[in-house]
Structures are given as C-alpha cells and as structure tokens.
C-alpha cells in the first residue's frame, strides 16, 4: 500500500469514526435526564406521510402539523387553505420582531416601492398543545356558525347564505375533530425565558424555528404596510418512527381506506430535538 493510501485509510477512517461519535454523543446528551417537555399528540398533530409505502422508502416519518393563532376567520384558518401551518399571527408584530433581534427598516408609504426585508432568523418557539389558542380557534369557528345561522334566519331561502352556513359548519367540524391542536404561541431568543413564561411541560414544548419579517397590508385595502412575523418552519417537524413503534401506527387490517388513528408520546430533549417515547393505536369512534 502506498503512503497516500495509508494516509487515506487512517485519516479517512478516523474522520468517519470521530464525526459519528460526536453526532451520537450529541444524541445521547439531548435524550439524557428528564425531558424538557412531553406531549401526547394524535394523528391530528403528527400526520402520516403521503408517500408511505411507495417510492421504495420503507422508513416512516410523521409530519408535525402546527398552526398560528389568528384573531378572526376566515384567513388563514379557512378550509380553503389546505396547509394551515404557514401564516402570520397577530402576536408576532413589529415590537416582538425587534425583541427577537430583527432590525426593521422603515416601510415606504408607496407599496410598489422596493424595500429591503431582513432575512430569516432562527429563534426559540413555544408550541402549545390543546391550550388556550386551540380553545380560541374553536370559539371563532362556533361564532362563525352562529353568525351564519343568524344571517340565514333573516332570509331562510337564500342559497348563498345556506352555503355560507354549510361552510362554517364544515370548518367547525374540522377544527373540532381533525385540525391540529398544536399552536406556535410565543417566540424568544432565549429558551429559558420562553420556558419561564410557559412552565407547563405537558402542554408547552420549546423548539427552534425560523421567523421572517414580512411587510403586510394594515387593512384589506392594501394601502399602508406594517411589519409582521411569519413562522417559516419548525425544526424537527419530521419525526422518525423507530421500528419498535411501527406496529401501533400501521393501518387497521380491512380498514385500508381510513387513515389510522393513534396517540404518540413525544419527548423534547435538552437541545429541543424530539423523539418518540410511546405510541398507541386508538379505536375509531
């Protein structure tokens, strides 16, 4: 063996082993001790991938679904929005963005003028499960149904008002039974501060995510602009399912058309990286 080949063998082998050792030590450290948070989620929050069982991939990963609380329907909490984890929220305003470290330039009066939006930053986000944000979302959907009913009562034969009511009832059923109850409710540069504001470890998990300022119209007219924050993504939102938990998530035999129902217990470690610690199959009601 030549000298170059010997160097390759030793240095290359050492590199692979050392890098893997560092990665695995990081995993062990993240999972050591008491988890930072433990959430019991369902198929509403951890969805099966569309590609499972096809494209030659035998692995299984669940996709975390999350939303941002909104103050009014229908946008973006409308059934017309198929993916409800993108969006802007009222709490992520200019003051909060500046607290997250963004330097927001003044916005032009003319919306057609080019301006420079600051790039995305990574911050800590608080994920709330089945808490006040979800309750508010339910209340909004119920209010919408009540408003549609009142509207129809004034003119019972109006087909358009009937359709509006049907749409509002559909949304309410979706929010109650199918949509995720996981909401991004807060953000901070410091994870400890965020945890101090949301101490319940069975309801709030702290995860890293990307936030980007976006110039949004203040009103529907679209004239004046203001800075709002947009949550681009949540880190670790694709959760690998180890072999030991695969059986609990498998589709029920003879029920191939129906999506499986399950409860997955997700732990979040020292670095905010999640992993599955339990999975149960749930019976269909």
């Amino acid at each position, binding site marked *: *063996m*030549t000298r*170059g*080949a*010997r*160097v*390759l*063998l030793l*240095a*290359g*082998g050492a*590199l*692979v*082993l050392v*890098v*893997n050792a560092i*990665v*695995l030590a*990081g*995993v062990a450290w*993240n999972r050591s001790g008491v988890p930072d948070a433990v959430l019991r989620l369902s198929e509403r929050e951890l969805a099966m991938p569309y590609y499972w069982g096809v494209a*030659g*991939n*035998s*692995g*299984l*990963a669940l996709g975390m679904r999350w939303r941002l609380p909104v103050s009014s329907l229908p946008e973006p909490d409308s059934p017309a929005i198929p993916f409800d984890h993108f969006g802007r929220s009222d709490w992520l305003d200019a003051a909060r963005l500046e607290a997250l*470290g963004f*330097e927001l330039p003044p916005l032009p009066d003319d919306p057609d003028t*080019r*301006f*420079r*939006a*600051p*790039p*995305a*930053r*990574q911050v800590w986000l608080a994920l709330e499960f089945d808490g006040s944000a979800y309750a508010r979302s339910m209340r909004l959907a119920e209010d919408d149904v009540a408003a549609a009913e009142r509207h129809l009562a004034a003119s019972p034969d109006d087909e358009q008002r009937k359709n509006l009511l049907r749409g509002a009832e559909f949304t309410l059923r979706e929010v109650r039974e199918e949509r995720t109850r996981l909401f991004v409710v807060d953000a901070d540069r410091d994870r400890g501060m965020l945890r101090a504001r949301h101490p319940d470890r069975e309801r709030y998990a702290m995860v*890293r995510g*990307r936030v980007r300022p976006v110039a949004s119209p203040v009103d529907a007219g679209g004239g004046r602009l203001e800075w709002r924050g947009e949550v681009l993504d949540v*880190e*670790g939102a*694709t*959760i*690998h399912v*180890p*072999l*030991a938990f*695969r059986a609990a998530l498998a589709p029920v035999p003879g029920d191939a058309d129906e999506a499986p129902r399950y409860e997955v217990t997700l732990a979040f470690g020292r*670095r*905010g*990286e*999640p*992993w599955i610690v339990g999975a149960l199959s749930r019976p269909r009601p």
Partner: protein
Amino acid sequence: MAGSNRSDAQRRCDDIRVFRAELERLAAEGVLELGEAQQAAVKAHHDALLAGFSRDFDIDRDLRAKTLSRGMRITSFLGALALAAAVYLFFYQFWGWLGTAAQVAILIGAPLVMIALTARLAGREGGAYFAKLAALVAFACFVLNLSMLGQIFNLAPTDTVLLAWAALALLLAYTCELRLLLVAGLICVAGWIAARAGTWGGMYWLSMGERPENFLPAGVLAFVFPLLVDQRRYAGFAATYRVFGLLCVLLSVLVLSNWGVASYLAWPPAMIEGVYQVLGFGLSAGAIWLGVRRQWADTLNTGVVFFVIFLYTKFYDWWWEIFPKWLFFLVLALTAVLLLLVFQRWRGRAAPGPEGVA
C-alpha cells in the same frame, strides 16, 4: 525533473511522442538525420523513461491509450453515480425494517468499508480508475451516513456537517487525483464559509443564499489558494480552484447587479445594482487580463463568458423593450463580432513573429 508525479510523467511522455513524430518528419524532409548510434541511444533512453512512467504512474503511452483513458474516466464516473444510487436506494428500501442499532451500524460501516476499498485499490498497479469509482461511492456513503443519522434522531440541521463532508471529499480527491471530489469538497467548504458569514450577519445559516455577498470570501479564497499552496503535483487542480473561485465571485456579483435588495449594503437598491454592474465588468475584464498574462485558459474563458453575460444583461435592460426583437439580436451578434475582432487583435499581438521564434 519531470516524472516526480503522474501529471509531470504524462507531460514528458507526450513530449517524447511529439519529439519522435517531428524527428521522423525532419528525417523524411532531409533536414536532420541522426546517426544510428545516436538514434539507438535516444530510443533506449526514451523507452526506459516510458517503461518507468508506465510502471510508477499508469500513464497513457500513446493517443489510443489516451482516448481509452477518457472513456474509462467517463465509465468510472457513470459507474460511481449508479453505484451510489444503488447504495442509497438499497438502504431506503430496507432501513425501515431494521432496528436503530442496525441502521447506525450500517450507516457508519458503509463509508469505512468503501474508504478501505479505495485505499487498497489506490495502492495497486492499474487500479486508479477503480479507486476513483470507490472514492466517489465512499463520499456518497458518508453523505448518506450523516444525513440519515439526522433523520433517524430528528437532529437539528447544522452547517458543521459541511466541514466533515468537505474533509473527506478533499482527502479522497487528493489521494485519487479526482477533480470531481475536489469540486464536491470546495462546494462544501464554500457553503460552510457562506453559512458562517451569514450567521455573523445575523441570519439563519440555511438562509445564506439570501445575501449573495456571503459567497464572496469563499470565492476569493478558492481563487488565491493555488497561488499560496502549490498544486502542480495534481493535474488540473489549480484550474479547478480558479474556475470555482471565479464562479463563486462572479455569480454573486451577477445576482447583486440585478437584485440590489439582497445586498448587505445599506444603499438604495438601484445604486447597489449599479455598483455591482461596474464591479462585474471590472472583475470579468480583470479575469481576462490575468488569464492572458499568466496563460490561464480557464481564467480567460470564465472571464470572457461573464463579461459577455454582464454585457448582454445590460443590453437587455436598455434595449429589449424599445428595440424591435430582430434589431436587438442583431446588436448582440454585432457585439460578438466586435469581441472576436478584439480577441483576434490580441492574438496577433501575442503570437511571436519569425524573429520571436528565432
């Protein structure tokens, strides 16, 4: 003396081939005829040199071997691509049915096995092409290793992984003289430097592309690296560094010359675009000048391509809307003719006249 490494040996071999052909021509034209003893001595010396080069460096001794070598390079590249895809798809097909410990063991074991195979093949006579194939697969296995560990343990993405990939890619590239892996290593290093620059600028590392200036330091570093560290032992490596560096710098400048809001500079976007347009013309003209002066064909060609792109971009801005389309393309064609005339003039000046030869 020539022959200390493969590229020198190949160059000497090519010189010997050209010398022999020219000597035959001179003899046929009656200009020069070596005596039999001289001919025998030169032939014996050259044959001994060629035999040594073939034994030590696996060089191409004639044009046929050179043509076949090119075919072998393409075949080993395609074979490596196919083998890497096979490894990737094989793992994907079965990994779901393995426990975590088995998955991790396979992921760590695969690059180790391929590195050992590469080292074994690299040390064997005539094994260079197989070693290159194994090196590409070893790198693919290491990329799969770390990216799949990230998936299995839901790890947060980090730019440090780029350094690990770069280290192995460069190690394999220098051991096997493989430019493709040199490029892979340079991409990883440039990505890491750009990510660090972006992080210092306050952005998330994966958003590094939102500020093209993040790629400028990596480009400059890649361009000057072969000036600081001698690359003559490795055929084509210096040119690869230079072209990669120029691409990093000139592509970033090209983007900024059309998209000023992406700059770090706190000036009005139109002013930023204007500054970068001037810089783009200046840098590509500088690359042409440097390429001519140092006889770096790679630098000259890259400079010409970008000079033309910058020029055509400006023409588009100025005239696309106001000119009839035929006139616009006619102007482009006339510009190309003008550039050809300029280059022809330069070539005429650069070419040595009869007195230069003497």
